[in-house]
């Protein structure tokens, strides 16, 4: 599509240098620095657009070999400019394992720690905040969210209090699997929150209709979970040829295609794919240095995906 404007070698040269491709037709808003950073609307602080989730992948119990391997995954994440790490007390040993990994890394510069409160009980919510700080080995969290809106009213009040005390920098709410959007919207419209987290991917674009526009309108940062639909989209695309044109924006795999689609939405602050493999982490993080498709090309990505 863009070969008539610039040849492949030139384009790749520019990409390799981390150059901006704003002049390219079709890349309207591609003037992003490498790595791609996105602002948190409430503060203006910028965080990397690709973070990491820990659902399943970091729940490895006491297995030392697996804990050490996950430490290397996290090392790759930070080495490649990673920031947000998201977890929850619901994820079994994931928070404990995260603490183990963080303790063993010489540098966790750039860490944006995010976890959740997940309990119907008020008092257990307070305990979970203390437990998370102990398990991660942190005395301050960047972000605490109310997981799946469980007892959100009371937990948000508690988290707001902790934010005022300086223990937490941002607060938010989460859903997943495309559920409870109405309730989430009501909270976004009536409460003072910094972040919302929900599911958005190329096959589940319901969030485009109301959640993402409302977040943009209200100045709420967005975290996107399940960008690969828990691997379902990777499986669905396995063995299928990539559309030829996507190589022009540096996409060489379906995983990159799917993640690029998510983070190229202008209202998305950070996507949090989860992986237990170093090569997959490198592939995810690599997307932050590549140009993003403009709206027209995003639509083409949808059409090409739906043709599969």
């Amino acid at each position: 599509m863009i070969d008539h404007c610039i040849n492949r070698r030139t384009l790749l040269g520019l990409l390799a240098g981390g150059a901006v491709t704003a002049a390219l037709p079709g890349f309207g808003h591609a003037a992003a620095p490498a790595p791609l950073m996105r602002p948190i609307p409430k503060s203006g602080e910028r965080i990397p657009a690709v973070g990491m989730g820990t659902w399943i992948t970091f729940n490895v119990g006491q297995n030392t070999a697996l804990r050490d391997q996950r430490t290397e995954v996290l090392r790759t994440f930070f080495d490649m400019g990673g920031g947000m790490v998201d977890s929850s007390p619901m994820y079994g040993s994931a928070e404990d394992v995260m603490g183990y990994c963080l303790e063993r890394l010489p540098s966790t510069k750039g860490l944006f720690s995010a976890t959740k409160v997940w309990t119907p009980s008020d008092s257990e919510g307070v305990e979970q905040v203390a437990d998370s700080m102990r398990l991660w080995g942190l005395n301050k969290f960047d972000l605490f969210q109310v997981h799946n809106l469980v007892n959100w009213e009371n937990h948000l009040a508690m988290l707001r209090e902790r934010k005022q005390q300086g223990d937490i920098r941002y607060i938010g709410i989460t859903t997943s699997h495309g559920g409870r959007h109405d309730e989430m919207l009501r909270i976004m419209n009536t409460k003072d929150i910094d972040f919302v987290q929900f599911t958005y991917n190329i096959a589940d674009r319901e969030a485009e209709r109301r959640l993402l526009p409302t977040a943009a309108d209200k100045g709420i940062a967005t975290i996107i979970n399940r960008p690969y639909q828990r691997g379902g989209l990777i499986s669905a695309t396995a063995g299928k040829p990539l559309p030829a044109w996507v190589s022009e924006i540096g996409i060489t795999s379906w995983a990159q295609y799917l993640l690029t689609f998510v983070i190229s939405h202008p209202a998305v602050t950070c996507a949090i794919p989860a992986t237990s493999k170093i090569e997959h982490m490198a592939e995810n993080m690599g997307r932050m240095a590549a140009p993003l498709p403009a709206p027209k090309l995003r639509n083409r990505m949808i059409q090409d995906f739906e043709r599969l």
Partner: protein
Amino acid sequence: MIDRLIPYSADVYQGLFAFYYLDTSPAHLIALPFGFVITVMLARHSKRGPIISRLIIAAFWIWTGAIFHGQYFTDLNWAAEYFGYVFVGQGVLIASHTLINRNEICRPEPLTRVIGGMLVVLSMALSPTIAAIMETPISHAHLFGITPLPLIIATMGVFVVTLERIPPWLLAIPVTWVVWEILTSQTLGLWHDFALACVALTAIVGSIAYERHFRR
């Protein structure tokens, strides 16, 4: 839908068993002679045999709830704490029922003894056999007495021989657990566990059918 309730991967779940056996060793070895004791007691008529075998089974339920679920599985699954309470509760129920009805005498016919004994032997041998056939490490097998599925199969073997009529309320937890195991193992692609869970379900359904329709 079920995948939302499973916060761990298949390999990590299998690894949990290896870690559990290693950490509680020699519990898995000590459990085996109890299995043989139960088998012998089911084969021979004695007044105390049924009581002792049911109390051993009750103890295994309590161990599995308190140790497997409460100390190990809880690392991977927040719900394991509750599973633990339920398993301990089942053990207490079996023990209470046994002690309250200790004077009741059940005289099973030889075929019933054979079926019950075979179920107990199956509970000891099946999972390691499946592991060997599927060429998976023995440490991934579900071992007798200290893991849920073999325990459920053995429990049915003991019940069918030692109880005139199996109270339905003693079956609620085994049935629920087997259904859960079938769903989770299918979701995770753990075909060893799936096969074991199907055998456990067959043991439950078969024991009830045998008791209701064939036993006199």
